[in-house]
Structure formats: C-alpha cells, structure tokens
C-alpha cells in the first residue's frame, strides 16, 4: 500500500523535472456558459478549454460554482429542478446539451466520483458490474473481466480480490471511494469527474487517491474539484480558480501557484481568504 504511494510520489517528481505540460488536445470546450438555479445565477459566462489526458483542478471558496460547473460536464444538474443554462459545453466536437445527445451515453463516457463515497449496498462485484449491466453486458466472463480490470486500475484489486462477494459497506472509507472510482471506470469512460473525492478521507487514503489520479491521467481526462490547495498543486496539471460564479483564472498549475495573473487568485491560494 505504502509502496504505491512512494512510487507515485517519485514518478511525480520525475514528471515535474522532465516534462512541462505541453499543449495537449482539447477534450472539453466550454463557451460562454451561464448557469441558473431558478432565477439565481450560479455561473457567469464561463469559457474554458479542458485538455485531454491531463488533470484539471477546479478550486475556489465554497459556493463559488466549481461543483456546479463540474456537474454541467455530465449534465448531472439536469436531475435538479429549476436548473437552466445558456452557452455551450462541447466534448469531442459535440455540444452535449444538443437535443440529439443521448444523456445516458454521455454519462457512460463521462464518469463521476462523488464527494461522499456512495457504494451501493451490494457486493463489491455487483457495485463495479452495475454500470456494465445497466448497459446490457450479461456475459459472466465478460463482467468478471471488466470488474477485475476496473478494480486493478483503481488500485483496489489486491484488497478486494478475496472479498468480491462481500458487501461494499464493509470496506473502509478510502476503499469505498476507490470502489466508486472502479465503478466509474467500469463503463470505460473517457473523462472522469471528481467532486472533492478525498475530502472525507484520512491522509493515507487521500495519498492513495492522489496516486490513483496521477495514474488515471495516462488514459483519462480528469477534472477534479478540491478544497485542498496542496492537493491541487500535487495532482493537477492545470488549475482553474472560480470566485462567485466567475472563472477568474485558468492556467497551468505551476503558473497559478507560482505566478498568478490575478490578485484574487494569489490571495486565495496563499490562504488570505476562502
């Protein structure tokens, strides 16, 4: 367990030394996004390109709209009464709010991990197999393969392989959250959204999640909301700072944390407010 942690940390340092985040492809392109809860505006004219196979951190004080923004990316806000928006969210060239877009397929491609880990009161196996089953996979061998692969990618396989038939509620908090990540990976998404995935976890579990995020970006585009500035600095390649529903600044994490353009960003990341 600790081994993974140090390995990740080493790799992280290497990466910092050897490669600057070059200009990757744009995976998600948000243009002039305004978002409303009834008549209350939560996001103001947000325009932002999210790069492929990188980790983008969304930071800002509580109520700044970062979670709302995250939830527009898989249309999770659709499930809340009274929400509306203007502007566009384009993923791989398609506006996901276009009426021809199948929300179900969108959410398969854009996985989500929640702040409060929400394993279902089923077995570990059934938790991970939930998504594939929903999408029609019935073949036992195929499901087994998906479950194993997803658990491995979520760094949970070693701990989980002997208790696949046990209830997921018996896992520790950190394991539960990794199980939820495995569940999100099982539908083979391209993008993973994480809403403060480690905020309720102890430091060791947090470190594991962070290592995992670091691994995930090799295959996935990751967008993570976090309250923890150190965490944003550790795991992300790009950081976007939101304040009162406005995207104040969006740049490489290095730039945001060492030489922010805006005074407000500097004040926030140095802990002067928020």
């Amino acid at each position, binding site marked *: 367990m600790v081994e993974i942690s140090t390995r990740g940390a080493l790799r992280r340092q290497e990466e910092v030394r050897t490669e600057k985040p070059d200009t990757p492809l744009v995976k998600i392109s948000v243009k002039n996004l305004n978002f409303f809860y009834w008549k209350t505006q939560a996001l103001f004219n947000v325009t932002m390109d999210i790069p492929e196979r990188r980790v983008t951190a969304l930071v800002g004080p509580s109520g700044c709209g970062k979670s709302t923004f995250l939830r527009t990316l898989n249309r999770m806000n659709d499930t809340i009464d009274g929400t509306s928006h203007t502007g566009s969210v384009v993923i791989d060239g398609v506006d996901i709010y276009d009426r021809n877009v199948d929300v*179900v397929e969108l959410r398969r491609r854009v996985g989500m991990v929640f702040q409060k880990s929400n394993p*279902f009161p089923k077995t570990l196996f059934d938790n991970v197999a*939930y998504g594939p089953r*929903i999408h029609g996979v019935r073949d036992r061998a195929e499901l087994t393969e998906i479950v194993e692969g997803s658990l491995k990618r979520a760094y949970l396989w070693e701990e989980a392989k002997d208790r696949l038939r046990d209830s997921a509620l018996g896992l520790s908090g950190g394991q539960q959250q990794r199980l939820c990540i495995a*569940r999100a990976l*099982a539908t083979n998404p391209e993008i993973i959204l994480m809403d403060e995935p480690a905020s309720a976890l102890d430091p060791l579990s947090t470190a594991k999640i962070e290592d995992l995020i670091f691994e995930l970006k090799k295959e996935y585009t990751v967008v993570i909301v976090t309250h923890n500035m150190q965490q944003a600095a550790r795991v992300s390649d790009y950081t976007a700072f939101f304040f009162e529903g406005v995207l104040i600044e969006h740049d490489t994490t290095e730039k945001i944390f060492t030489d922010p353009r805006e005074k407000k960003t500097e004040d926030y990341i140095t802990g002067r407010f928020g």
Partner: protein
Amino acid sequence: MKPTAAAEKRRRREMTCFWVLRALTYVVVAFVGVVLLDIVVKGAPRINWAFLTEKPGPDHTTGGIFPAIVGTFYLVAGSIGIALPVGVFTAVYLSEYAKDTWFTRLVRICIVNLAGVPSIVFGLFGAAAFVVYMKFDRSLLAGWLTLAFMILPVVITTSEEALRAVPRGFREGSLAVGATKWQMIRTNVLPYALPGILTGSILSVARVAGETAPIMFTVAAFYTGLPRSIFSQVQALPYYLYTVAINVPNVNAARPTAYGAALVLIVMVFGMNLLAMILRAKLRKKYRW
C-alpha cells in the same frame, strides 16, 4: 453533599412525571390484555378442527366458519394484490417523476385526507361505482376494488416515504454511470424502499381483514358457500361476526361461535402480519445501508 431544596423538588417532580407516564402505559396494556384474554377465554373452547374446516350449522351453534376464513383470506390477498402495485407505482410517480407544483401538492393533500375518510363512505362509493354502475353486482371483484381504494392512501403515503428515504447518493451514483431514470428506480431505489413499502401493506392487511362497512354492500353475504369465481359473493369473518353477534335467531346460543370467529380473525391478522414482518426483516437484511 446534601441536595438543595430546589433540587429535591425538581427530583420529586421528575419522579411523579415518570410514574404517571408509566401508569398510563400500563393502563393501555391492561386494556388490550383484558380484551385479548376475554376473546381467548371465551373463544378457545369453541375452536376445533370442525370449526376451522366446516360450513356453519343451521343456527350457528354447531359447524364451523370455513367459508368466512376463506373469504377473508381472498379479500386480503386480492385487495392487497390490487392496491400494492397501483399504490407503489403512484408513489414512484409522485416521488421520482412528478415536479413539485401546486397540482402535485393538491394530489398529495387529497391522498392524505382520503386516509381519514370513514370506511362506510368507501363502502357506499364501492356499492355505487362497482356494484351498480359497473354492474359487477355484489362480488369478490367489487369487494377487492372497494377495499383496494380504501387502503390505497396508506399504501401510497408509506411507499412514498420509503422511496424518499433512499439516499440521494444511490440515485446519483446510478445516473452517473449512465442509467436511465427507470433503470435507476428499478435497480437502485425500489429494492431499498421495499421494506418500508411492506410496512404500508402490513398496516393494510389488518384493515382489510377487519373492516365490515366496505364489504357489507359490495361483497359479503351471510348465507353462502365458497366462492366459485371473482363474481361470487363470499363470507368474511368481520361480517359473519357482526351478524352472528346480533342478527341470528338465538344470539345467546351463538355467542361462543362469535367469540371463536373473533379469535380466528385476530390470529389470522396476526399471522399475516407476522409473515409480512418476517419478509420485511429478510429484505432489510439483504438491502441494509
């Protein structure tokens, strides 16, 4: 340290309250106990195999109450069978699909109020709607529908509460992997609401088995055998009990039969509730969160 006068006074008041509450509880328990004991003592001697398996004798002092037992069983099974699916799906619609508008709020208020409507009103409604207008005549079908209508409010309200108690995380987690709303409800909401939904039906079993008013005009008959179809009339324990207790030529001679029927009714309701409670406990264990 000696307690101050004020503390002593407070302590005494506390004790008084405690004893008053305890005494009241005992009074309630005592009343229930007396009623049950009375029925058991007076009813038990009448109960034997023939009583449970035979038709009533000519003056209801001999023979049994088999048709009434069967009738009550049919009434419970049928009306729950109708009310449960209808009620659960109504609750699903109200809690999962319907938007919160003045109309849905009005619907909810109506449902809650319907639960308080006296059963005789449901009986009259059933007689008018099913027996006369829909020409079902007095029949099992008319009785089922009437009783189902009577218990629907309770089934809907308890089911809706059970559905609402399912954590938001289960729903969002399900939607987030690409489930449709109905897939989410079917796989990740309804199963966890089932124990709560069963509570509603447990309450309903006792009500259906015990009510006389709604079946009087719609299904129950005093002189009849076993039902042959859903258009037959049936005997039912509460109605039989009512008639034997006040409406037979020799009421006093038939009194043990009335007590016997009462005991059987109580045991039946208890038994069906027990069954539902065991099922609920099993489901709770399976779908605990």
